[in-house]
């Protein structure tokens, strides 16, 4: 192997790390926002209010029917129109990711909440706990254990999906690698390194998900 020069990675490392930081930042914010909004959507969807429930279902199914790259693109143009002022690409992409991930996390929460048998709700109600107390103290702690592996898997997918921000010229890890590869004409070295980074990070996520699901298999 004569032509390969991995020194390019070392020289471009600060630049690549900047991109990686954006990828991590987007993953974290989208996950946090998506989980909170997703929980709300799931609770509304499972509630007795038919009209609200249908709206929530429409939201979830709508977002899940559209590719993320399209959502990112649209929000880049739509958010400034909706707010009546210009927003940065980063702001628009954060909103797009949170709203998009909320649809997926909502489905994970819905399955998690439904995995708790009705007797648990009844037992909590019978003791005088209210709906939100039961949700917070009895149902969610159990549901979260069932859901955590899926939530991590979703986060891994999300981390990979942050590469899509290239469509509005934001520089995540993948885009940074791409720039370096083309600028220094070291495509093989850079893309090998990029693949390795994704592989390591996502493998850690996947491994922790399967470890958790093994440990918390219901008794």
């Amino acid at each position, binding site marked *: 192997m004569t032509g390969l020069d991995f020194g390019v990675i070392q020289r471009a490392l600060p630049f690549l790390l900047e991109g990686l930081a954006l990828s991590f930042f987007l993953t974290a914010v989208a996950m946090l926002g998506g989980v909170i909004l997703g929980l709300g959507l799931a609770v509304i969807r499972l509630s007795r209010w038919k009209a609200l429930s249908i709206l929530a279902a429409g939201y979830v199914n709508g977002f899940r029917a559209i590719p993320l790259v399209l959502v990112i693109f649209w929000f880049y143009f739509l958010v400034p129109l909706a707010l009546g002022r210009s927003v940065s690409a980063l702001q628009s992409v954060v909103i797009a990711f949170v709203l998009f991930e909320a649809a997926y996390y909502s489905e994970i929460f819905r399955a998690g909440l439904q995995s708790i048998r009705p*007797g648990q709700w009844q037992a909590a*109600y*019978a003791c*005088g706990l*209210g709906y939100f107390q039961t949700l917070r*103290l*009895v149902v969610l702690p*159990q549901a979260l254990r069932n859901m955590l592996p899926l939530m991590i898997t979703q986060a891994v997918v999300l981390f990979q999906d942050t590469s899509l921000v290239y469509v509005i010229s934001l520089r995540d890890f993948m885009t940074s690698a791409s720039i370096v590869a083309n600028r220094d004409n070291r495509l093989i070295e850079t893309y090998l390194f990029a693949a390795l980074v994704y592989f390591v990070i996502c493998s850690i996520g996947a491994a922790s998900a399967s470890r958790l699901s093994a440990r918390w298999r*219901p*008794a």
Partner: protein
Amino acid sequence: MTKAHIQASRTPAEIVEMPASARVVPISQGRKPMVEISKLYKSYGPIEVLKGCDLVVERGEVVVICGPSGSGKSTLIKCVNGLERFDRGALAVDGVAVGDRASDMTSLRARIGMVFQHFELYPHLTVLQNICLAQVHVLKRSKVEAQAKARALLARVGLPDKEGAYPAQLSGGQQQRVAIARALAMDPVAMLFDEPTSALDPEMIGEVLAVMLELARDGMTMIVVTHEMGFARKAADRVVFMDKGAIVETASTQQFFDEPRAERAKLFLSRILSQ
């Protein structure tokens, strides 16, 4: 006049001088019955599960509800604390109208204990935490106070050394006794038991029934859905027989076992007692 009315007309001193009977039943002292159910109807779609049930349970009374499976027993007692809604009829517990939008069901439920067929302990909490949860979050007791209450009740149900265990580490009989302690921790005015021993292995039924029997002797108002006729004989004041969503027979315990009137009750008894 009923025994209750005679008792109510006595002065406290006279009551004290009364000969101590084997079982002290503080039957409604001029107050409303604990549970009043009248003309209760409920359907699941086209299937009518309750067809005009009437039942009055006095304070301190122990009523056993029996009958074939699918006869509506569980639905009826779940209506009592509002876990099931009913379509028509009236139901009042401790003077509070159940099913009325104006009634505070949450605070009513906090005063009625319930024990389920499948225990329904919270699997993510220890025994002690199970018993303290509603005490702290509903009755607003301090953690120290709740834990002291929990420990006293665990001793009472014979599980003083299990406070740190998780439900999955306990046998079915132990779990059900913890569930009883959890309900008692709320200082309920009445207790509902929905087939409390049906999910238990035979060798564990006795330990749960013993706790329930002691509770009955202490004067707790109890409605118990069960097939345990031995328990009914020992603890019940009255036995209610249900079939196909209707209350077919209500009789004093002795009368029910010695001379049941309804044909279906006779058939049920002969089947269950011959087992």
